[in-house]
């Protein structure tokens, strides 16, 4: 049977067909739908973990006991999980274990475009790269088996355009694979130096065997056309190559690591000119160069941002498509923004007014950095805000600038706090740091699609989970000053912040209300502008609410967008913004 599936859904399907037992992940675009899809297969237990490291550790335990496991994450998530990954490479796999990384070339929803193919080299594990949903299904299944056959974790790499492209998939049946059971194995699973030294030799032997496998792997495929030009490619780039250069011979590498050297040599010798077309880093190209084979690659193909048919064609000066002639350079851009009624807006409005130095974090609330709020100074990675704020304070202490030091506030979302913010907070507390940490608690991992987390208490499979209460958790650390404020009460937010930044101690302010896009959010009657009272002072526009715009003589609120959150009426000095009775 045929179905149209997103790459991520196809990974889930392939895992199910391959007899998967357990799946774990922390949500992150573009990977989140893998676990969401897996949660619909009753034979598989799947869960959201607090972060990617924990997810891989849980999966490793499953493998220890002979179960098949899959862990999914976005590219930067693998940095978090890198520590267990490198150990796991030595330990190998009892039950098959697949790590799915979803890279994000062009950074559609990410802070960098790191190329996770490099992890395969440095962790010394095999890499599989599907180029559409059907391959995603097949390769996931293959990866589970390969993992057990070669006693290794397998890295399955998708990119945004594989994860989020829907294409046709042929559905297969589930293979019944029993859990093997647990058997103690000191030499394999305790990587004390005495064992690890031996295990490293085994890893190098394994790489040799995998190289032979890759040289003969049926999905590392030569598609013979003209012998004038041969193109080596992988992943989504394969699709662009076929679109733009139908006349060229192609070597499609579905398993580019360990590098299939013999196959590449054979292909290179069969064509007059060899090109390598791949996204981001010259991963394959470097390997070809190491074989001393002349190749044209990154000297033509851009390293920065994702490829597409036009970019591939232009790289080689080829005409492509039937373009119209139109100039659109002057169009106003439409960057993403906080939603109407977003519970984060109020904090950022006050932070901006108080001219705080705000170290930010990863989530919807990073959008508070954009105009008109301009309220975030830094954004580095998951959990960074708290350590960053503390570090700025340390430097300002050295400088002796006590006034500026007080203005430093860390802001972090609820899910990010559980992911990796809490370790930073414990560090600040332990080292006698002070300052204010703001947790924007919207009961959700909102940016990635409203997944649950420990503070929400709902599990991925829909059963009630145990809820970790933020206030008692933080008080449990020993922090005395923990306050909760309603996200829509500007006066209270201002009062709490002014009070806490002056305090000569560490404090946490939880600003709380459900995300405006989830069920728990209560939409209220909309607000409108009294034309006679409005002076067009534009103060309400400073909230950056997409429902408010400036008309010719007064502000206008779009009643279809307005959620009745009341922030604009609190901001208006002329009482010109009033609530309508009916919804």
């Amino acid at each position, binding site marked *: 049977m*045929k*179905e*149209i599936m997103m790459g991520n859904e196809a990974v889930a399907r392939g895992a199910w067909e391959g007899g998967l037992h357990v799946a774990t992940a922390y949500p992150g*675009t*573009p990977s*989140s*739908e893998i676990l969401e899809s897996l949660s619909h297969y009753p034979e598989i237990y799947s869960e959201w973990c607090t972060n990617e490291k924990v997810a891989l550790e849980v999966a490793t335990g499953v493998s220890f006991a002979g179960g098949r496991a899959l862990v999914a994450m976005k590219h930067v998530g693998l940095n978090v999980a890198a520590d267990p990954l490198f150990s796991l490479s030595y330990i190998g796999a009892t039950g098959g274990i697949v790590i799915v990384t979803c890279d994000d070339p062009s950074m*559609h*929803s990410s802070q960098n475009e790191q190329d996770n193919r490099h992890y395969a080299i440095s962790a010394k594990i095999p890499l599989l790269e599907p180029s*559409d949903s059907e391959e995603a299904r097949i390769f996931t299944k293959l990866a589970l088996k390969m993992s057990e056959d070669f006693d290794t974790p397998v890295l399955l790499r998708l990119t*945004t*355009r594989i994860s*989020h*492209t*829907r*294409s*046709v998939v042929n559905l297969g049946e589930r293979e019944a694979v029993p859990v093997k059971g647990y058997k103690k194995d000191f030499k394999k699973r305790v990587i004390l130096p005495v064992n690890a030294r031996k295990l490293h030799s085994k890893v190098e032997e394994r790489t040799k065997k995998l190289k032979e496998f890759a040289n003969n792997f049926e999905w590392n495929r030569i598609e013979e056309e003209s012998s004038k030009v041969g193109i080596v490619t992988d992943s*989504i780039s394969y*699709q*662009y190559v*076929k*679109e733009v250069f139908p006349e060229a011979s192609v070597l499609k590498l579905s398993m580019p690591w360990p590098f299939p050297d013999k196959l590449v040599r054979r292909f290179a010798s069969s064509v007059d000119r060899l090109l390598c077309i791949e996204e981001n880093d010259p991963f394959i190209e470097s390997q070809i160069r190491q074989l001393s084979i002349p190749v044209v690659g990154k000297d033509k193909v851009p390293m920065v941002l994702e490829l*597409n*048919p*036009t*970019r591939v064609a232009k790289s080689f000066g080829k005409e*492509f*498509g*039937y*373009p*119209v*002639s*139109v100039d*659109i350079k*002057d*169009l*106003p*851009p*439409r*960057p*993403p*923004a*906080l*939603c109407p009624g977003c519970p984060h807006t109020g904090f950022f409005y006050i932070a901006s007014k108080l001219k705080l130095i705000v170290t930010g974090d990863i989530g*919807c609330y990073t*959008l508070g950095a*954009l*105009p*008109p709020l301009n309220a975030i100074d830094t954004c580095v990675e998951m959990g960074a805000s708290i350590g960053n704020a503390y570090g700025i304070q340390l430097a300002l202490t050295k400088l002796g600038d006590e006034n500026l030091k007080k203005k430093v506030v860390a802001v972090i979302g609820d899910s990010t706090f559980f992911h990796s913010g809490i370790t930073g907070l414990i560090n600040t507390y332990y080292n006698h740091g002070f300052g204010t940490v703001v947790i924007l608690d919207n009961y959700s991992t909102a*940016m*990635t*699609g409203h997944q649950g987390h420990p503070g929400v208490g709902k599990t991925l499979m829909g059963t009630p989970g145990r809820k970790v209460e933020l206030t008692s958790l933080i008080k449990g650390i020993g922090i005395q000053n923990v306050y909760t404020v309603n996200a829509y009460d500007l006066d209270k937010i201002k009062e709490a912040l002014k009070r806490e930044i002056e305090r000569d101690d560490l404090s946490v302010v939880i600003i709380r209300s459900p995300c405006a896009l989830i069920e728990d959010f209560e939409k209220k009657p909309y607000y409108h502008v009294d034309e006679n009272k409005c002076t067009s002072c*534009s103060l309400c*526009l400073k909230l*950056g609410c*997409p429902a*408010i*715009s*400036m008309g010719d003589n007064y502000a206008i609120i779009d009643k279809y967008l307005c959620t009745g959150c009341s922030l604009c009426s609190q901001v208006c000095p002329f009482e010109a913004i009033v609530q309508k009775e009916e919804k």
Partner: protein
Amino acid sequence: MKIVSIVVCGVGGQGILTASDIVAKIALRGGYDVKKSEVHGMSQRGGSVISAIRYGDKVYSPLVTEGMADYILSFEKLEALRNLPRLKNHGVVISNDYKVNPASVLSGELEYPEDIEERIINAGVELELIPGIELAHKTGNIKTVNTILLGALAKRLSFQKENWIRAIYERVPKETHNSNKKAFELGYNFKGED
């Protein structure tokens, strides 16, 4: 069969992914190879959103870039113009006659272009402007704008009307089936003012 490429675009939250899902499903049921690209995550928060559907005997690239699209179906006028470079020089733009101001326009910093229709027509392509909201009011369900636009696209493609309606029914709540059917017909039969 040659590949048909359709760009569906608009502003995050307008239901672009659902609409493009429906088109992809119909193409699959028509027996074609189909690919559909979409973007999730940050851009869905009120930013420009684009999804592309391609179908035919064998589809490679899921992305539709410069000069590749046969049709642009836009839920918002500015986004129709923004994506115009993706259109083939003999392609067709079907756009909702509707404005959503970007943040830079709301704040008065930049202006919403007033010459969108003119610029599209001057590019030498066909423009069909659909008064989506006005037509949706006629169905008694303001949320049927997307179905109206799908109707306008459907009349230019080769799939059976019944297949469209079936696919739409699968994606909308049961109590809205009647208004959605009405909306599809309004879009399908829309003739403009000439």
